[in-house]
């Protein structure tokens, strides 16, 4: 029988950023979205991206390197189990990307393995896989990125509509006791006052008592990596003004939508 494998971009611990407590975060390779502001552009290509990077910590000679490695899913589960001393403060394992559901079968296998070992699970997803709800029972802490309320605008900028994401958010809100929705705010895309009100409208009629929201301001931390991948960074003036950000916060809070910062 063939062993299940998973392509990984990166793995490491972080504290309370992608789920509660200290977490072992696996970044899975491959994404079906093409967000122009992506801070991990090397994660997009399924099978990995060729990057031109310094050879090592102390040798700045440029070499080409593939962005991902392959690991057996069973090994990953074993590693996650052995790592349990580091899951303090209610931590556990988070799967993120790229977009983890691009490797749906492996993700399901891993989540099942983690749950069998009583490890707290979290996943961050763009929500656009139609079978995502099948995983809801395996995920203790679900983070869904929701980039635009207008699917057509979403498709124009990101190259993929988000109708399924919208459906999956609704299903999560009705089926789950927890959901964190993350909205990346990018000037010229979704950061205007009108946009804020439209987002609020989208959620106003939904059951959001168990849902929290995080507004992520545009940044350019990954800009250099676009060049390392031989890609052009096209976002201009993406930064969100303090006024627009404040308006967003006010709009959400005034409408009873609970904001958090991680």
């Amino acid at each position, binding site marked *: 029988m063939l062993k299940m494998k998973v392509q990984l971009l990166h793995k490491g*611990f972080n504290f309370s950023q992608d789920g509660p407590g200290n977490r072992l975060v696996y970044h899975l390779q491959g994404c079906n979205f093409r967000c122009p502001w992506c801070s991990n552009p090397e994660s997009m290509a399924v099978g990995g991206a060729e990057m031109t990077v310094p050879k090592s*910590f*102390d040798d700045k000679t440029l070499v080409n390197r593939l962005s991902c490695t392959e690991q057996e899913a069973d090994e990953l589960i074993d590693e996650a189990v052995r790592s349990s001393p580091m899951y*303090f403060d209610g931590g556990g394992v988070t799967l993120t990307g790229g977009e983890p559901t691009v490797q749906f079968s492996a993700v399901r296998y891993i989540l099942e393995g983690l749950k069998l070992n009583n490890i707290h699970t979290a996943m961050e997803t763009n929500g656009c896989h139609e079978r995502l709800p099948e995983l809801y029972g395996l995920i203790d802490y679900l983070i869904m990125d929701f980039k635009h309320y207008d699917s057509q605008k979403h498709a124009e900028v990101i190259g993929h509509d988000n109708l399924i994401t919208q459906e999956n958010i609704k299903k999560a809100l009705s089926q789950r006791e927890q959901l964190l929705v993350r909205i990346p705010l990018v000037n010229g895309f979704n950061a205007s006052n009108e946009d804020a009100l439209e987002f609020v409208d989208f959620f106003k009629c939904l059951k959001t008592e168990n849902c929290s929201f995080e507004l992520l301001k545009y940044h350019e931390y990954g800009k250099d990596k676009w060049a390392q991948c031989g890609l052009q960074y096209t976002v201009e003036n993406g930064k969100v003004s303090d006024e627009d950000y404040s308006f967003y916060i006010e709009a959400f809070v005034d409408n009873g939508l609970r904001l958090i910062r991680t």
Partner: protein
Amino acid sequence: MSRIHYSPVKATEMAKLLFKEERSLKRIDGWFLARELARKANEENGEQPREMKAALELSKILSELPISLSENAVFAGTQRDAFARTYALINPAFRVETFCGYCDPTSVFDDIEQNEEFTVERINSLREYTKKSDYVRTLTCVYDKYENYTAEVAFFIEQVTGHLVPDFRPALKYGVKLIMDGIDCRLSVETDEEKIINFNAMKLTLKGVVMLANRYADIAAQQAKTADAERKEHLILLESTLRKVPEYGAESLFEAMQSYMLLWQVMCLEQAPNPFAFSVGNADRIFEPYRKMSGENRDETAALFKHFLVFYNVGDRSWAISQNVIIGGKSNDGEDLTNPTSYAMLDAYYDMNVPQPILSIKLHKNTPIELYREMGRFFFTPGCLTPSLFNDDALFVTLNRAGIYKNDLQDYSVAGCQEPLIMGKDNGNTTNSWLNLPKILELTLNDGYSTITGKKIDTLAKKTDALTLLKNIRSEFYKNVDYFSTHMADAANGASKSISCLPVPFLSVFMGGAESGIDTRDTNRQGTKYNASGCLIHGLSVIADSLVAIDELVEKRPQDADRLIDALRNNFEGDEELREFLLSCPKFGNFNNRVDSEAAEVANRVSDIVKSKKNYLGNSFRADWSSPSTHLLYGYWVGATPDGRKAREELNYGVDPLFGEAGSGLGFRILSNMRLPFEKFNGGYASHFGIDPKFFKSPDNEGKGEEFKKRITDPLFFNEKNTNTSPFYLYVNVTTPETLRKVLANPKKYAPSGVYIMRIHGTFVNFLDLSPAIQQDIIMRLDLQSTSI
């Protein structure tokens, strides 16, 4: 009640001026004068038993060495006259390739600059006299005998001076007079001739410290005659204090600190010119009873400690290196021992930010959160000293397993950088020997030939083909570790016997000698409750990574066995492909089961080998996995290694991964680290995290201190899911390479005081005082990828 009349603000101002005075001293000549007086004493007294000879030498020094009292001094005393400017690493002119150890005990005479007073004839006269001493002659024989092994550092040995933790508590409490009375009682019934001599010698040195106190009292009295009213009041207090302590017991914080400083001064003078790395011990516990007696508040206590800290700084670069002050911790019963003096001492340290003495903090599971909050300012203020951290919970287990009685555990403290010793009871002879595992691997792979110089160092392995050798590398390597360790132990014991030619009656009083009548350095009879010799073991992760890389080569490309040996010999020149393969093999520190298990095995087996070697008294050597910048110095003598490391590059530091090889972040690094058998590291070990401050988000330093607990010390030290003995030592530098490069490029902007404190190994250093190689090593080893959170 003896309390100073200066306000805390005034006393602080004086401490800072005193430090400025000290740092302006370019010449440190007192040690030379002390050794001249010792020579004079010998000439005057004729043939004497060694112990008495040492006491008479010290007595002469204490009675005639010029002393003074600065107008900014609150206390009398200095340790300046005990030190020479010899510590290579804080010399900006130092170059790694020139380092050849401290094996020539007369090289110190090169450190004194000639002038009209210290003429070349005068210097050479004392040098020649010293060369004829039993100590130098026997030590030279030891170094000559083992030169073939030490020249390229398969191992190294040294005669240990300093590096102990005296217990001055009885002297503070009862005064040295009562100790002398006790010795008299013992003398009245003692029949052992050697002990009688020793007891008398000890008594003579105790009289010496009283004499020194009275000399300072005379100066205070003299100065009081012309001082202004405020200073006069203080000088009167100082004089009366010096007439009282250390002869009699102290009854206030001021008296206790004054008593302590004079005892320290004499202890160091006894070992001039290089009494490095004595430790104060559990300082907050020593002084808190006296603070309670005299009732100083936090600010007043801190002000006194600022003068105490200045006392430990010698000359323009604070040459009295690696003297350790430790606070916090728990009792034998698990009770927290942090007290008001602990916090006042932190205030003093933070405000003074001086390069010496080193601050260490003992932690345990129930350390109050307040202590972590107060530590935050040290970690998160750029250029500020940072305490090294000890885990009492794990260290108690490790020490108890190594034979330390439960009643003594709370009295462990740290000599030198990180070596745990029991105050007043433990001669660990800590830096006696140094083992270089990667050099031994190099010699194992090359039939005893050095790939650095091509010289034959020894005949080690049966001649065999390369593939067979690689397949059997573990058995051959460990066999050779045992072989070299045996020679190392012989050599180290020889050095210990040499230094025993210089007995230390004064120190011995505070190491159990006042009861036993045996000198601490005696190599025939054990004068301390605990005794051992230290062995600093180098290259753990280089060896683990290398053994795994050899396995991978044997598994995947056995046809390249000869090629590997050639490539190592040629430093990979012309075979970058093979080096790439070796570099791609798993490396320790990334939570890879295979290589982490290998590292644990290396640590286990080598610790056991070291433990199996016996010192001069038949006690075991202690495994100490630390490398106080010697990972750099010894790496210079190691050829290319099978992990892909190139010739002459530095080795890994302590038990840490080789820099740049653990790129998976702090979580995985801690998990790898947890696999190591810390319970076998009873000699200590070293580990460093270079931490990027950006990971700590709290708005203030106190909050960041709490975060530091939650994210660094709790998972590392107090991890409930770790079923092994937990790690027990860590030091950190919280900064980035960019910040340090800016400091170097523009010191006036980033370090206007001229002092920017960093840690190397267990000691603070002024980053700006260091040699460029050490500065670059600090920058490189920050290795932030390995600690990303």
